[in-house]
């Protein structure tokens, strides 16, 4: 051993009731490195980090920091030992300024003035040292998530953290913001800080880490030098078997269009045009992917087509009927009755009611369907029978329709939504971010289901900010930028080319052909 590791964990155990979340975990993190910890949702990564940050206490095992055995009683103790954490859900007070958030808990004295002015100077220094630019007087609620995350990093650095833990830091970021974050992590490393990156995205591990440890079902199964491993190997270690990173599918056999959108324009509540004169069509038996950095109008497009949002103008042709979206009063229920299913982008906000049970969620939006109701009453027997069937077909775990959806993992929650929409046999399915925050095993399953639906002759419109997903699933890719469709590519689209389009670089092919159908 030439150098004392920044952190060493020996035989850490932690159980929550019957769930053994961490089993005999050993981990050595070298000082000045970026160490990735990868694993599926529920593998115990967050629990382990919470133990390190003093949020939970280990049942047994040793924590050794800089060669000294320590007990971490609470977060305050962890901060004192130079550990900082950027949580998946930011721990910021929205209506406080950046400065107030940085100072909270490290105010120096009973009066604020001194601490605030010290923080102002210190922030300026950190800004220069780490290239972390944020206006200290700005309110958190006015900042985009990327900057909010920067504030979290600054908070840790302000407390002179030597080790920075980032828990799923890119879950809320756009690809561009994520790239920027990785640059910041590199700067931190070069300044001698140690970074622990918790994620379930293989790409990120490959892109930034020096070392990677893999967790599976509460156990640490392997540690590798990132340079000596591959995505395939890591994926296999994570799930305990090899998974297809690529989706196996036959070439599409598209038929007649099942949904046509013409000249759709949507204006949001601020009066800004967010979807600008978009025309597209989806044919039976094909998956049309919409690629783009989030916030370029994809969400609004999906919401308008599913009847949640009103359009300013535009036409929708579906099932031989032409609907003027500018004046239509069709709502989400009407759209569903027109055989248009919708898997919303955010399952927590729109797809599910987390405090409802699985069976209640399994008919949400279809509760008026005569199959599930008898007059004013719900037909609980039929609903539960249907729920049990869906649980089986979609391998939803735990297989208990009486459990609240809040108690399912992200992947299983997404399967509940997907099962609900697909099993109603829609002609057109609108899908937003089908695998956001979902573990690899479930991703594979979900992708297969989507392809099966396509092969059954349905039309699918897929919106995702994961370029890999778009490329793996789509038969045609449309790229959205600034509310417009700026390019179209086939299923074998080049990643770099799509990236340029997503960044708003003009498509020469498009100008040559004079437009996209």
């Amino acid at each position: 051993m030439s150098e004392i590791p920044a952190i060493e964990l020996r035989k850490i155990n932690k159980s929550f009731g019957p769930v053994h979340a961490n089993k005999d975990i050993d981990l050595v993190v070298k000082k000045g490195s970026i160490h990735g910890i990868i694993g599926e949702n529920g593998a115990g990564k967050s629990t382990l980090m919470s133990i390190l940050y003093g949020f939970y206490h280990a049942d047994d095992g040793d924590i050794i920091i800089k060669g000294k055995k320590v007990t971490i009683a609470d977060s305050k103790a962890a901060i004192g030992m130079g550990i900082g954490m950027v949580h998946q859900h930011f721990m910021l007070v929205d209506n406080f300024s950046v400065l107030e958030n940085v100072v909270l808990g490290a105010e120096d004295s009973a009066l604020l003035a001194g601490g605030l002015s010290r923080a102002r100077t210190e922030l300026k220094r950190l800004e220069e040292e780490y290239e972390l630019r944020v206006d200290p007087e700005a309110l958190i609620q006015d900042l985009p998530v990327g900057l909010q995350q920067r504030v979290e990093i600054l908070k840790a650095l302000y407390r002179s953290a030597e080790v920075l833990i980032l828990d799923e830091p890119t879950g809320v970021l756009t690809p561009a913001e994520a790239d920027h974050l990785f640059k910041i992590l590199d700067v931190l490393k070069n300044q001698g800080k140690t970074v622990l990156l918790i994620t379930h995205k293989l790409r990120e591990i490959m892109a930034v880490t020096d070392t990677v440890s893999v967790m599976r079902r509460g156990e640490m199964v392997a540690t590798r030098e990132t340079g000596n491993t591959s995505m395939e190997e890591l994926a296999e270690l994570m799930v305990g078997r090899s998974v297809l990173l690529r989706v196996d599918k036959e070439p599409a056999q598209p038929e007649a269009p099942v949904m046509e959108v013409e000249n759709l324009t949507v204006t949001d509540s601020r009066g800004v045009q967010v979807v600008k004169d978009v025309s597209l069509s989806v044919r039976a038996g094909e998956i049309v992917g919409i690629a783009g950095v989030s916030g370029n109008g994809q969400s609004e497009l999906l919401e308008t087509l599913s009847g949640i949002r009103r359009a300013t103008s535009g036409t929708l042709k579906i099932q031989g009927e032409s609907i003027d979206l500018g004046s239509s009063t069709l709502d989400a229920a009407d759209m569903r009755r027109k055989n248009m299913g919708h898997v919303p982008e955010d399952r927590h906000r729109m797809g599910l009611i987390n405090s409802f049970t699985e069976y209640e969620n399994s008919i949400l939006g279809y509760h008026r369907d005569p199959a599930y109701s008898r007059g004013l009453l719900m037909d609980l027997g039929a609903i539960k029978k249907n729920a049990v069937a869906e649980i089986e077909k979609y391998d939803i775990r735990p297989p208990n329709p009486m459990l609240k959806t809040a108690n399912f993992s992200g992947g299983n929650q997404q399967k509940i939504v997907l099962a609900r929409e697909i099993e109603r046999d829609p002609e057109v399915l609108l899908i937003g971010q089908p695998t956001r925050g979902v573990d690899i095993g479930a991703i594979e399953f979900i992708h297969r289901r989507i392809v099966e639906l396509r092969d059954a002759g349905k039309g699918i419109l897929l919106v995702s900010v994961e370029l890999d997903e778009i490329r793996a699933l789509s038969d045609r890719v449309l790229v959205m930028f600034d509310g417009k469709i700026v390019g179209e590519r086939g299923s074998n689209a080049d990643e770099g080319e799509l990236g340029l389009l997503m960044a708003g670089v003009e498509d020469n092919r498009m100008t040559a052909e004079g437009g996209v159908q």
Partner: protein
Amino acid sequence: MFETIILMMDATIRVSTPLLLACLAGLYSERSGVVDIGLEGKMLGAAFGAGAVAYITANAWLGLLAGISVSVLLSLLHGFASISNRGNQIVSGVAINFLAAGLTALLGQTWFRQGGRTPSLPDGGRFTEIVWPFAEQVRNIPFIGPFYAEVLSGHKILVYVAFLAVPLTWWILFRTRFGLRLRAVGENPAAVDTAGISVVWMRYRAVIACGILCGVAGSYLSIAVGSGFGVNMTAGQGFMALAALIFAKWKPVSAMFTCLLFGFLDAAGTRLQGVEIWLIGEVPLQVFQALPYVLTVVLLAGFIGKAIPPKAAGIPYLKERS
């Protein structure tokens, strides 16, 4: 006419004082994330405690101390239920209101046998007016004189305490470490927890501050304006203070102006009782009594700006299990 205005202002200040104290009390509690619907009960308990002890000891200060103690104890009860045991804060608050209403009447009757009232206070058991220097000499100076002598001078010490508590609260809230943490814990307790600060201890300190101010408010009723405790003598002022708190959007200076407005409506209602107003006729007292609530509802409906409560108010804090 001028004399009437002066008298109205004087009355407004007197009526506003307990509202303001209770409103600031609620402010501390709710800013920390603990909704306190039990302001009424705490005031009532304090009024009784103050009245009883002031009667027995013939000492207003001991009475005040007793009033504050009762109120703080009730606060701790609310804290125990809603902070330590993460119970529903509304239910706990309502329980405290019932508890105070029942217990004060019962103990009052058992101890003093006057239908739940405490006997009239002896000299020394009540706070007396503080007359400012030269109040009598300047009384005859037009306008300023009566204003100084009637409106500013000649109130009980608790009135001045209440109005001084306003800048003090503002200063604590926005200029001290305690205030920063208090506001943070009401907005995002998880952020406070991860910063290494105890959420539970912060909230307990907030409800204790709330108890102290409520104690002063209740004591003011029984041993400053009143001369002894009367059954249910708070008569909904705790709820009125809660309405004022919402109306003031949880801000101390706005709270003062809101309480003055509500106090003025009350004073005006009393003043205009039985008076015919040109073109309108006699306005029933109830109209004035209802106005503060009507205004608050109008505010909540979004007609006068927007009242956004502290984000974590009413939600018990529970560390997530991964």
